[in-house]
């Protein structure tokens, strides 16, 4: 069995940044296991620009952003295996993987960083009635076909869901000569970034129908058309509002789900709201020495924040290997819970152990609805310690607050930190 200090599962933006950060923090034996034929993950098919504004202060395309990190991985001489599928991770951190060259093999890791990213919600998760003809794709599949394989999956397109990938694909397919007839969104607001609605839909005159869904798909061999209907405030179609659109392709951009089959298999506790692991201040799961970052932890809007989070995970995994793991150094784990309440759907992390915390800790969260002129309030037990005014918060844009160690040490008996959205 091979031995490594840190095994990173996934060579996308999270895995790459975690690897670089772990190396920069003094870890020699690192390996990235990637199932695709190249590093970079989903960035390779995201050929549009807008990546890297926070990290590199310039707008890069997905492949360019990935290349910046791949260059660092190569410069640091970090090992990686491509075309390698991880089959299992045990609680003892034995990683079982396979590829064509080595067959099935095992690696004993001191620490594991989960960086598997996420998957698109498929049609099966939606309960759309109708036949199952060809021509129904998830937006990301269509993106891969167009941008990497060079195929246009259809000529007349309806898109269900206004997530960013759906919006980006509306523009992309239009530019490649397809007619995108309409984008339907079940919710009364779009889950995508404003910029994408303007530059991908409005620029090309593509209508966005909010509070609409697909109620029927016509066509037996190939999609011939879909019927949209308006939905009420409970998301139920309103009879009499049906409208038929002829099309040969239906793209689904209806959400992303962290890919946690491996995590679940090894006994990592998952948060039902994020579908990602529950983590502490070190981005460490309930299994000691197993860390998570990027979209496998919670779905991000911006890759810059994935990289930042992954750098933190890499650094923490490094100090785990150097400290707790090698020297048996274990501080008491008196934990403070972070609770998400009234309007806040979840927080990452969910617990803090002040002894392990950096001077500053970023707590990322999402809200459950659109709130205008509100305050993001932080409570230490029952005491309101901060209220930050926001003109607007929306489910489509991840928010963050910063907690300082000094501030937390001033409250030694604190049990709970609560995040709430309140009226300003």
């Amino acid at each position, binding site marked *: 069995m091979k031995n490594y200090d840190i095994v990173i599962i996934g060579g996308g933006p999270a895995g790459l940044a975690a690897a670089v950060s772990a190396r920069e923090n003094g870890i020699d034996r690192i390996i990235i296991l990637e199932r695709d034929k190249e590093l970079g993950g989903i960035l390779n098919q995201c050929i549009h*620009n807008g990546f890297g504004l926070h990290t590199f202060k310039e707008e*890069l395309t997905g*492949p360019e952003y990935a*290349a910046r990190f791949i260059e660092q991985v190569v410069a640091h001489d970090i*090992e990686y295996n491509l*075309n*390698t599928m991880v089959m299992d991770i045990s609680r003892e951190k034995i990683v079982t993987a396979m590829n064509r060259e080595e067959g099935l093999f095992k690696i004993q890791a001191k620490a594991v960083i989960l960086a598997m990213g996420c998957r698109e919600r498929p049609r099966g998760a939606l309960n759309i009635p109708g036949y199952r003809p060809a021509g129904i794709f998830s937006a990301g599949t269509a993106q891969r076909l167009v941008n990497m394989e060079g195929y246009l999956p259809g000529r007349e397109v309806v898109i269900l869901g206004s997530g960013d990938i759906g919006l980006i694909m509306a523009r992309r397919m239009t530019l490649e000569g397809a007619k995108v007839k309409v984008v339907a969104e079940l919710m009364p607001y779009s889950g995508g970034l404003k910029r994408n609605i303007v530059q991908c839909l409005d620029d090309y005159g593509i209508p966005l129908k909010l509070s609409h869904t697909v109620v029927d798909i016509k066509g037996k061999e190939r999609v011939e058309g879909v019927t949209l209907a308006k939905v009420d405030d409970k998301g139920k179609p309103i009879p009499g509002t049906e409208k038929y659109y002829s099309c040969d392709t239906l793209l689904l951009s209806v959400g992303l789900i962290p890919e946690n089959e491996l995590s679940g298999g090894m006994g990592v506790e998952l948060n039902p709201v994020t579908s990602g692991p529950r983590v502490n201040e070190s981005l460490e799961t309930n299994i000691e020495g197993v860390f998570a970052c990027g979209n496998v932890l919670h779905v991000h809007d911006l890759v810059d924040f994935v990289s930042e989070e992954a750098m933190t995970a890499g650094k923490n995994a490094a100090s785990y290997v150097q400290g707790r793991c090698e020297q048996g150094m274990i501080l008491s784990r008196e934990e403070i819970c972070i609770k998400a309440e009234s309007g806040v759907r979840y927080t990452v992390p969910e617990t803090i152990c002040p002894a392990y915390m950096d001077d500053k800790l970023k707590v990322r969260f999402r809200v459950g609805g659109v709130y205008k002129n509100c305050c993001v309030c932080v409570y230490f037990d029952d005491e309101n310690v901060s209220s930050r005014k926001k003109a*607007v*918060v*929306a489910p489509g844009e991840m928010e963050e607050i910063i907690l300082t160690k000094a501030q937390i040490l001033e409250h030694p008996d604190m049990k709970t930190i609560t995040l709430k959205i309140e009226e300003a």
Partner: protein
Amino acid sequence: MEEKNLICINCPLGCALTVMMQGDEIISVEGNTCKRGDAYARKELTNPTRIVTSTVRVRGSRESMVSVKTKEDIPKEKVLDCVRALKDVIADAPIRIGDIIVENVAGTSVDIVATKCVKKSDDYIQSP
């Protein structure tokens, strides 16, 4: 005087902007809640530009396509011409990020550059 409506893209608030124009001149911007909205409206209505990203076919590699972009932003009305100009372009591997794939695309005096490194077929090594 003509009224134009647009949505500001600077933040999730998405202010609905109302702009009064006299010919090509902007008389007033209303509806914005910060100065970024004003600047956005002025640029968008007098000189709207976009970076265009697309793909072109590749010869001599295991990869079928290479992703490309306009090196700088080009006038918005040139976007479709730009994409059309890429339709029959074939690029030969190897290609490095930043390599010029098409010069002066659609008369914009802006070049199309590669955004991905593509090796020749034989240069892809198997994983160690």
